[in-house]
């Protein structure tokens, strides 16, 4: 098992810069989820760590060794691909054994490793089947098996769950988590699905347009997003991001709505800001309470466990989404008095950075 360090990684394809400078340290046995929307450079970053792409600048260090000039096969890593990349004409067994055979391992040892991995992944009776005769979930497990038998220092995952249907994805997510708990290997997992990232990651690395927006534990990223982008990306339904201007201890939003400045916010009067409130941090006002905002309901999603309400904070005012307890009955046209029950976030409108007074 090993530590991985990325120092000043930059990547450009021809004239087009794709990664603008990534620095990160991944501890031994840590599971880091690299999260971001399509095109943010996360897969490219993973491939640079794997050695399938060369960085334009910067260094990749695995277990203290600089591996920029080392072939993927010699970096002691294993990768699980998005489309599994199984050799179509080989059986599951051969798929898993192939890398070991090339390394000259003897038959008995290979058999040992493959059967052990197959047991861990519940692939028992499927080893003699070719990929064509395996379901999506089974193929994915064979792909993982191929990575496991290598007993690498670092596991790399390139959106391995994206091609599975919803129920299977949930299942596999849990399997993966259990696997990590039992194997304890350093893992780097790329995904665009924030639920996956939150479930699996010890830490999250949130990327956007080739830059790292935030690195931190899941709850940290959830609770104190460093930028407006991270704030809007994590959480479902997405955080409400409202444009406004700082004015006398509060933020003035469109339509005359005012929200008090959160404590600890560092923003001078007149600054353009973005105010963030999570939908789950809004609740109907209890009797006698004074509402923080009033919502004119336009659309209601009754989901059973929750009721998601969409509306406006008044004429000409910004739109807002609130996630309320499922038993509440809400109708369109209703005016809901809501209290803010969680932290309010403030971001600079131009840079997107969190506005907060230092500790």
């Amino acid at each position, binding site marked *: 098992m090993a530590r991985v360090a990325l120092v000043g990684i930059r990547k450009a394809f021809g004239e087009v810069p794709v990664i603008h400078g990534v620095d990160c340290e991944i501890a031994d046995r840590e599971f880091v989820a690299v999260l971001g929307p399509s095109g943010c450079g996360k897969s490219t970053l993973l491939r640079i760590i*794997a050695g*399938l792409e060369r960085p334009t600048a910067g260094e990749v260090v695995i277990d203290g060794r600089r591996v920029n000039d080392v072939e993927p*096969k010699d970096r002691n890593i294993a990768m699980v*691909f998005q489309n599994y*990349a199984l*050799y*179509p004409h080989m059986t599951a067994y051969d798929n898993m054994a192939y*890398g070991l055979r*090339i390394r000259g391992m003897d038959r008995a040892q290979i058999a040992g490793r493959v059967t052990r991995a197959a047991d861990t992944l519940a692939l028992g009776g499927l080893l003699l089947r070719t990929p064509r005769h395996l379901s999506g979930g089974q193929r994915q497990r064979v792909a993982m098996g191929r990575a496991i038998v290598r007993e690498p220092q670092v596991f790399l995952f390139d959106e391995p769950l994206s091609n599975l249907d919803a129920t299977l994805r949930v299942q596999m997510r849990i399997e993966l988590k259990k696997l990590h708990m039992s194997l304890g290997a350093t893992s780097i997992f790329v995904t665009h699905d924030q639920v996956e990232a939150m479930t699996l990651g010890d830490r999250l690395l949130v990327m956007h347009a080739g830059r790292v927006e935030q690195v931190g534990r899941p709850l940290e990223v959830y609770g104190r997003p460093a930028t407006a982008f991270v704030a809007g990306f994590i959480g479902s339904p997405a955080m409400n991001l409202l444009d406004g201007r700082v004015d006398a201890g509060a933020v003035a939003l469109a339509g005359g709505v005012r929200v008090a400045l959160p404590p600890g916010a560092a923003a001078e009067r007149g600054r353009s800001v973005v105010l963030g409130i999570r939908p789950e941090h809004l609740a109907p006002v209890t009797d006698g309470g004074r509402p923080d905002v009033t919502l004119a309901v336009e659309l209601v999603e009754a989901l059973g466990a929750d009721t998601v309400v969409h509306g406006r904070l008044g004429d000409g005012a910004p739109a807002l989404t609130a996630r309320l307890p499922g038993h509440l009955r809400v109708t369109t046209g209703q005016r809901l008095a809501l209290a803010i029950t969680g932290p309010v976030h403030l971001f600079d409108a131009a840079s997107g950075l969190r506005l907060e007074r230092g500790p």
Partner: protein
Amino acid sequence: MATVDALAARGAVGTPGRRRGRTDWLPHVVIWVGMLVTAFPLYLIFVASTLTPQEIAQAPMPLVPGDRLVENYSKALVTGATGRYLSPPVGRMMLNSLLMALVITFGKIVVSVLSAYAVVFFAFRLRMVFFWMIFITLMLPVEVRILPTYKVVSDLGLINSFTGLTLPLMASATATLLFRQFFLTIPDELVEAAKMDGAGPMRFFRDVVLPLSRTNIAALFVILFIYGWNQYLWPLLITTSNSMDTIVIGIKKMIGTGDALTDWHTVMATTMLAILPPVVVVVLMQRAFIRGLVETEK
């Protein structure tokens, strides 16, 4: 839609292609006519190959097979024609044809698959130059460069040699392009997984690319075998001794000027023998062949 097609296939639901009643017989009639026009001439050749020279000479020849099947074919195979042209035994000529066809086929496949692999999986400076070179050869059939090609072969001392017969025909643009097209469909991830597994390019070629190319190779085998077996102009120019004649050339020499002094029964037997191997190959590998043929040209 799948189910509608399936139902239509069983005739349960009418599709535009299948009409009830009046015009239902038309496709069948046309098909039978087609089969007849194709098969009847071949049938007549077969009949002629079983008759005596006298029966043939007396026009019109009978339309049912005669009783000389065994004699005619064994004579052709063992002794060859005894008319104006003393041919080597047809058996010998068939062997020549077989050897030539197989060597050309395997040679072309090997040469092409290697070239296509290089063009697709590597980046080297002359790559595009090479690719266009191959492309251009599509436009240069042998017939267009008859004399100079002959001269080159002659200068290399390869006239009347087996090498001279087969080597010049071993570079094939169509085979290379077909393999290239197929190789382009191999997913990038597969190559990367192989790299991570530690496979170098030739290992990847042997363990992954070749097995995946099996159907393409089968289809090409049929096409190239027929091409090789049916070669005419090139063997005509290159071989000077009768013993090297291929069966196709042999037939031509047997008929001389095609007059009645020809050993027609032997010629016909030889013709049947010349047709048999390629037809067998096509029929046996029909599906792979058709798929490959349509893929090659597109």
